């Protein structure tokens, strides 16, 4: 059987209308003289006809008479319970989280280690940095040394006589609005009187800064 190099490579492209104009014209001209290529082209056309015919026959055999009734019936079906939907959702995502057990264990361990670390470091900065904050480069130095007016109970210090430990019970503690002063500092020149006043009637603590102790007469 005679063969042609164009028959395998270019005739299928010509049949699929995939060739550019100059090459297409050249192939059409070639096909007029090449029996092999003309035969291959006609075979491809016949193949496509048969294929289209087969699909049409299959489509015609499908019964669409009850299509919309079925759609409506599906729509009116009760929605599955949340457990079933959760299960379906889980199954749909299964490939995404199908990591091996060690990977999950490492992720859990890292998460449980990193968070407390961040938490503790946050508290560390709070307790170590903010109680007596050193002036930042943008903050001018205070005009005078900080005056520690009251210092509450800490691990390293003794209890100040300014702070009373009344030893309240849990319920009393909840109902008692009295503030406990851990520390209080004022900055700047000149004497600053700090009055810490507990108002029993309103159950409130008032801290007032003044130039003298008689500024807010009680």
């Amino acid at each position, binding site marked *: 059987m005679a063969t042609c190099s164009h028959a395998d490579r270019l005739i299928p492209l010509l049949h699929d209308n995939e060739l550019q104009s100059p090459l297409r014209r050249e192939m059409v001209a070639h096909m007029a003289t090449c029996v092999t290529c003309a035969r291959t082209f006609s075979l491809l056309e016949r193949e496509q006809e048969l294929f289209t015919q087969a699909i049409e026959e299959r489509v015609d055999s499908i019964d669409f008479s009850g299509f919309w009734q079925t759609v409506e019936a599906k729509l009116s079906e009760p929605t599955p319970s949340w457990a079933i939907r959760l299960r379906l959702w889980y199954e749909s995502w299964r490939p995404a*989280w199908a990591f*091996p*057990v060690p990977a*999950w*264990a490492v*992720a*859990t361990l890292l*998460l*449980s280690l990193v*968070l407390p670390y961040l*938490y503790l470091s*946050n*508290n560390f*900065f*709070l*307790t170590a940095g*903010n*109680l*007596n*904050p050193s*002036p930042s480069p*943008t*903050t*001018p130095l205070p*005009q005078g040394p*900080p005056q520690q007016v009251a210092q*509450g109970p800490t691990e390293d210090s003794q209890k100040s006589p300014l702070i009373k430990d009344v030893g309240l019970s*849990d319920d009393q*503690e*909840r*109902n*008692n*609005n*009295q*503030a*406990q*002063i*851990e*520390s*209080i*500092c*004022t*900055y*700047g020149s000149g004497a*600053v009187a700090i009055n810490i006043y507990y*108002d029993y*009637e*309103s159950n*409130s*603590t*008032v*801290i*007032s*800064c*003044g*130039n003298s102790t008689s*500024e*807010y*007469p*009680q």
Partner: protein
Amino acid sequence: MTPHRLAQLCFVVTLLWALHALAEEVELHIETVLATNSSTRFDARLQDLKPLLVRTFRYTSYRLVREIRQQARWGEEIKVPLPGERQMRVIPKAYDRHRISLQVMLREGTNPTSLLNASLSFPDNGTIFFAGREQKDGVLIVRIGTTAKEKGHEP
């Protein structure tokens, strides 16, 4: 339950715990009151404070200058601008045995200088008052109220 399921469950529980920890919040209610002797007007919004204010400060006029309600995370610094280029910074530090610890700093000026730095604690849903220095035309009083939304932060 398979080991794979168990590992996934542990991860999810840890993740939920982490999200829960991050969501811990405290609500701050900060009111700034200007007390003067310039008039006898009493702001109606301060009616619940009237007995305390009159008893403690003895001014004739009280006006609510600013009221702020803000959710804050533990350790987050809340800045409250005050009249006269002053600023109050409040940091909710911790919740322990029904009490909320706060750091309160009062600063002054465009290039802030510290005036006051207090570390204190008071009961959940409680209030505390700060009064500044008496000026010729009155005094600023700041009421700070706090409510812990999550009670788990115990350092």
